């Protein structure tokens, strides 16, 4: 057993950290949010230059052959920087589908994605679906030699800047059947995306498909969706750990410098215990993020799904405690837009609800028999 990073992995994490140290100061980030895209095109170019955008794709497709651990290490740094660029939607979600797509599609798109020229998004959520990946009302019909898709997808992360969408759409069965869900790819020009800002400062879009011309990626698509989402959950776990790490460290620093009643507030035992509880939550989350990588690679789909749920539960619970307490222990200052801590809290809140919040997954896991088998 070895939790240490390889030398290559350390180098990767360091170079990403360094890139953000230079390009992601608080004021810089604010300017990115205000820009037309809502994120930094200059940083995006740097992602490409550093090889982050092509990392998880096979070398023969034009990528660098990285694994999920590499992706997760990047995600952790994204969390620490509160990065706004469409890396998660393009590389983790879109890339997850692309890696599993036909050789033809991979050959066409991977080089473009790696170069930062093609941004991807995953259009999945529907008004009624909540967190159920299989609850799909959007329809797919064969037309001529191809497919057309009709329906509305909500909360499509970075859907307003995507060049291509991976879309779940139903070609058979009832709205909540596990079968009959296809994964399709639609070019942005065939869809209408209405972008808006999300509560954490990011971007998302409501995307409408009206008989949109689509390319079939997988006809029985749900297993593919679940595999991609399991990887996304691992990346989100690392991102959350990155956020928690910073929120906790900021809180400790602040406690040591903030004076009330003639002494640093870190001298009050009630607050010391709270900071210790935050550390317990953070370490539990960190451990679970390692498990997330292991679980996402499980070849047994049921085991993988249970593992991913367990990860979401622990990360969500920890993120809530660390996020809320980091605000509380700061006092009023962390309630302001001009102070970074609140932005970590908001991101942690949103991170929890991506692909199902802790409440959703504890129910799913409990219904699925939990983690420990009774002999």
């Amino acid at each position, binding site marked *: 057993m070895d939790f240490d990073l390889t030398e290559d992995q350390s180098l990767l994490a360091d170079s990403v950290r360094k890139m953000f140290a230079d390009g992601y100061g608080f004021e810089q980030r604010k300017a990115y949010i205000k820009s037309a895209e809502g994120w930094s095109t200059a940083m995006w170019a740097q992602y490409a230059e550093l090889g982050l955008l092509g990392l998880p794709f096979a070398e023969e497709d034009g990528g660098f052959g990285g694994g999920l651990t590499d992706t997760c290490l990047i995600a952790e740094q994204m969390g620490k920087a509160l990065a706004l660029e469409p890396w998660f939607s393009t590389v983790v979600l879109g890339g997850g589908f692309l890696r599993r797509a036909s050789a033809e599609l991979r050959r066409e798109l991977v080089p473009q994605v790696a170069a930062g020229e093609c941004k991807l998004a995953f259009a999945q959520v529907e008004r009624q*679906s909540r967190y159920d990946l299989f609850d799909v009302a959007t329809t797919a019909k064969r037309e001529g030699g191809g497919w057309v898709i009709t329906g509305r997808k909500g*909360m499509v992360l970075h859907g307003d800047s995507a060049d291509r969408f991976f879309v779940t759409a139903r070609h058979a069965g009832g709205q909540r059947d596990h079968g009959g869900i296809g994964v399709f790819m639609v070019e942005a020009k065939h869809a209408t995306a209405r972008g808006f*800002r999300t*509560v*954490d400062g990011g971007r998302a879009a409501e995307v409408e498909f009206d008989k949109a011309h689509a390319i079939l990626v997988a006809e029985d698509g749900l297993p593919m969706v679940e595999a991609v989402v399991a990887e996304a959950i691992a990346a989100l776990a690392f991102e959350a750990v990155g956020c928690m790490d910073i929120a906790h460290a900021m809180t400790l620093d602040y406690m040591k410098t903030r004076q009330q009643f003639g002494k640093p507030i870190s001298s009050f035992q009630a607050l010391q215990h709270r900071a210790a509880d935050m550390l317990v939550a953070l370490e539990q989350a960190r451990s679970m993020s390692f498990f997330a990588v292991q679980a996402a690679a499980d070849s047994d789909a049921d085991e993988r799904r249970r593992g991913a749920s367990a990860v979401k539960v622990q990360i969500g619970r920890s993120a809530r405690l660390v996020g809320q307490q980091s605000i509380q222990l700061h*006092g*009023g200052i962390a309630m302001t837009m001009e102070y970074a801590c609140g932005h970590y*809290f908001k991101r942690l809140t949103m991170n929890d*609800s991506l692909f199902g919040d802790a409440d*959703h997954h504890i129910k799913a896991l409990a219904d699925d028999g939990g983690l420990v088998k009774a002999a």
Partner: protein
Amino acid sequence: MDLNFSAEEIAFRHEVRAFIDASLPAATRAWLVAGKSPTKAMVVEWQKILNAKGWAVPEWPVQWGGPGWSAAQKYIFREELQMAPAPSPLGFNVNMCGPVIIAFGTEAQKQRFLPRMANLDDWWCQGFSEPGAGSDLAGLKCRAVRDGNEWVINGQKTWTTLAQHADWIFLLCRTNPEAKKQEGISFILCPMNLPGITVRPIITIEGGHEVNEVFFDDVRVPVENLVGEENKGWDCAKYLLGNERFGQARVGASRERIRRLKIIARESMDGGRPLIEDPDFRRQMTEIEVELKALEMTVMRVIAQDMKRADSKPNPATSVLKIKGTEIQQGVSEMLMKAAGPYAWVDGDPDEEGSNEWDLAPDWAFGLAGTYFNWRKQSIYGGSNEIQRNIMAKAFLGL
């Protein structure tokens, strides 16, 4: 023991409810139901309606426009307003500065300020906290120096809620830097339109503008703007803070939000069924309802005790109300956000009416996350929940 409201009290509740139904502008009610904070115009309009009815200042003596209600009636009135939901009479006027002037002010101050406060002709704000004086309020530095017939004020206040609307600010200023910290503070009233005052907005994490920094640079007010004795302002402050804590139980407000939660949970889907049918959701919500019932009974006990107490000092039990009341409100705001599932991510500016013409999310989902973020303030202000525990450890537990 009789835990029931009397027939008169029940009749009173109906009277209040009927009045609110008949007089509360529909647009204001709809705005508040949607979870938004009322605009200045809404608060002013409504308080003038209440004042015309003689109901704007329930806590004040009859002589100054109070309706002469019992503690139970005041409680019923507050609860009905919160449940309507209607704006509450402006706390800075009615529950904070007004009672201090009544308890500590001169006759001239009462004549001059109280009627305009009651009618919200003047909007007041609270200038207590400073960058270096939060929980340790008595550590405040903002100076007021006597110069002939004037106080000259220099320093900074912060977190000043709705100072952007205010005509007046009530200040705690240091008037004797040599004395022990609590003994060199005075309570001073200051118009907001004087030269030397600068108000700078502080934007809170959800994007709203409700708090401000207020700077004082050689601001001059007449000596008669001192309330109570010079260097005895801490007595006013303690009196005021005790009243503030009591107001934070907000039982009616939580009940209104739970009602809202139930309505949203009928529309929001989970597992192919309305969320309200999910046993886990219902259990979580019901836990809060039970806590709220217990809090309500605790509030009633405090009221009953207070009705029998001779002195009007704040009851130390108000710390219990503050802690539990804010925890419940924060809990409900979190459940409201989570009820919207992924649609809670849409960023709704809480102060602006988004037209939602593109139907980005259900109308009811806007602002739910923002309120959850914003309401983290509740366990910080009004004496943080940690400070309340310190007060209890001292005042109740003798530790």
